[in-house]
């Protein structure tokens, strides 16, 4: 095989993996949009907040230390203990559930039946709030996420594929990051368990009922408020997973919240209401932008990925305005 072909293959594989990382973020959006029609811009900040909380709990940080020190003139930062990763994750999930309850009680509850754009703006307000709140609670310095996920290129794969290229070509074997492989595995488990949950549990059925028709669901005795808390909790959990993966990749700091921007074209492509759409959309965006950067990027100066993802999604949309897997828009008079 020629090295060029192998390189292209490598780009495609890595694109798929990157796509999975985008999908992880997009999933949270889809869950909430499906259940409540809210385009939750705060999903990215939720991922940041969850990751910060996880690291904070793990390393025994004192919440609001900076604020307390500023007010009382004390000098305290750490409890001085370390919490095992597993326990810390469980505690963080608890925090995210609490967060979901607060959001439902103080925001969503008061905005029932508002127009989508109002709800959207409310979530941006929420994102602002959480950005400031997270920083006050845990501090704004860069933190390292360490929950034992391996990273670095897979040596085994590199050596195994080294001989594939023709003799004498510049080729160093296939490169795939172990972290990406783990992320793929996690994403698969996440999607399968979400599907099982929504298909085979009572709560899952209620969720789907609400997604189909709020009024009808209400009329058969499903509590909308409870459902919203559950959905936001699940979305919080998904945000935590995304936060862990992205945090392990780039450290836990402010920019983590900007991953939301990478999820938007995925949503556009996959449709706001489809979980498989979020996955497939992520894969298409991942491969598309990486291939474009690989093939065309060097000719036009590079750094094309940010806009190309959107343009790619836009091109799909022009032909299918509701996204690949979105519900068909039927116009009637």
């Amino acid at each position: 095989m020629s090295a060029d072909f192998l390189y292209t293959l490598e780009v495609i594989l890595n694109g798929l993996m990157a796509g999975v990382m985008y999908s992880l973020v997009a999933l949270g959006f889809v869950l909430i949009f499906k259940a409540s029609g809210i385009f939750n811009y705060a999903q990215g900040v939720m991922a940041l907040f969850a990751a910060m909380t996880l690291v904070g709990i793990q390393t025994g940080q004192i919440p609001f230390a900076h604020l307390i020190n500023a007010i009382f003139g004390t000098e305290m930062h750490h409890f001085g203990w370390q919490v095992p990763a597993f326990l810390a994750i469980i505690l963080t999930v608890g925090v995210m559930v609490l967060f979901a309850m607060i959001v439902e009680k103080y925001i969503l509850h008061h905005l029932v039946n508002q127009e989508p754009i109002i709800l959207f703006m409310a979530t941006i307000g929420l994102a602002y709030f959480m950005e400031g709140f997270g920083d006050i609670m845990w501090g704004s310095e860069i933190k390292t996420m360490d929950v034992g996920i391996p990273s670095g290129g897979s040596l085994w794969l590199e050596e195994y594929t080294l001989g594939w290229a023709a003799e004498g070509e510049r080729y160093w074997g296939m490169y795939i990051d172990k972290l990406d492989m783990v992320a793929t595995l996690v994403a698969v488990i996440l999607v399968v368990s979400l599907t099982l949950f929504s298909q085979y549990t009572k709560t899952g059925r209620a969720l789907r009922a609400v997604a189909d028709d709020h009024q009808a669901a209400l009329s058969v005795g499903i509590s909308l408020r409870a459902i919203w808390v559950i959905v936001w909790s699940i979305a919080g959990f998904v945000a935590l997973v995304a936060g862990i993966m992205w945090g392990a990749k780039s450290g836990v700091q402010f920019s983590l919240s900007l991953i939301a921007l990478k999820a938007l074209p995925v949503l556009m492509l996959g449709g706001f209401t489809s979980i498989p759409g979020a996955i497939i959309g992520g894969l298409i965006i991942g491969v598309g932008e990486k291939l474009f950067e690989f093939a065309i990027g060097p000719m036009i100066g590079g750094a094309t990925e940010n806009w190309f993802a959107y343009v790619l999604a836009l091109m799909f949309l022009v032909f299918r305005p509701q996204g690949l897997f979105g519900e068909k828009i039927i116009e009637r008079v």
Partner: protein
Amino acid sequence: MKIKQLATVALTTLAVSAPVAADLVFPSLSYRTGPYAAGGAPLADGYADYFTLLNQRDGGIGGVMASVPECETGYNTAKGVECYESTKGDGALVYMPLSTGMTYQLIPKVTADDIPLVTTGYGRTSAANGRVFSHVFNFPANYWTGASRIINSIMEEAGGDISGKNIALVYHNSGYGKEPIPTLKALAEKHNFNLTLIPVDHPGQEQKSQWLQIRRERPDNIIMYGWGVMNQVALQEAANIRYPMDQMYGIWWSVTENDKLEGMGSHGYKGATFHNVGSNYPIFSDIQKYVTDAGLAAGDGSNVGSVMYNRGLYAAMLAAEAAKTAQNMFGVKDVTSGQMRDAFEVLDMSAEVMAAAGMPNFGPAFQVSCANHGGPGLAAIQQWDGNTQEWKLIGDFEAPDMEVIAPLIKADSEAYAKENNITPRDC
């Protein structure tokens, strides 16, 4: 109606809340929030702590207390305007905006307001031409001299010849990151090496494409002009593809304590710097005694001695020395911003001055002149030691290839002068 009330309250607050007029005002436009907070916080701490030290230990500068009103910009240029306007009325002596974008914005403004603008290691490189940029100082080094210094170091290691080598520039795709490109292009022509440009968009969490490209092309060296999260991700990706760390060079904004990997991950990673590292200087015991122990530190103390903290300290020292120079020059205690500008123009940062300030050999010795606001552009190379988890200086502060840079500075500054109708001064 409500808005009007708010506006009234706002306006009255603005009028009332003007800081207490201190005698020497050194505003600090800091960013302790936003995407670059991790770098901005220690920088601002160092700047503030130095003046606190002077006030506590020496009773200010020449007997006049210094004050450092801090204004949070969040690395946002629009907020920078607000900060500039809100502090300049208090008799600000010098501005150090700590952001390239804000520097560009302030260059015309400070010139009109007769306040010196000092950008240590950032900002507009061609501002080194004092004939065009009368109020802007970018000593001791800038992005172009830094790039040249890195190339020199690469040449040294290669035994003086880098013709035919491949060097990649991984840069933050913004004004800051693009700065070194003309210099590197000129140097590539001169030394006959191949330059590959690899931009990374803000914020730079996803750099897979870029590093796959690097892995394919295997450049002999990498120069990185990164900032914020981009640095950490780049280092992680470099380690992932097992790129040799000692062939990687960062500019000074890419070689801080935040820019490292766990354990030996980034051992050997190098970078250019224009000031020394570590806390092995007399001044640090004074800071401990007069500032930290007295509970007057700007930060929580954990940053003292870090690269960014030292950079803040160093910048403050330059400003304070200029203030002293101005006091001596004009024989007054309360210097004005115009006098500060004149002082900066004749600033002599000799080894003795630095030693007297408790920071011997902390930065390069240099002199500023009317025509040259950038100094000789001396820079050193620092290297990360994974064993001790700290940066170490390797080699001395050395001069860049001014033969290449000087014409570039001249061309760019003259283009600016022409565009803005500025007649260069006679120097």
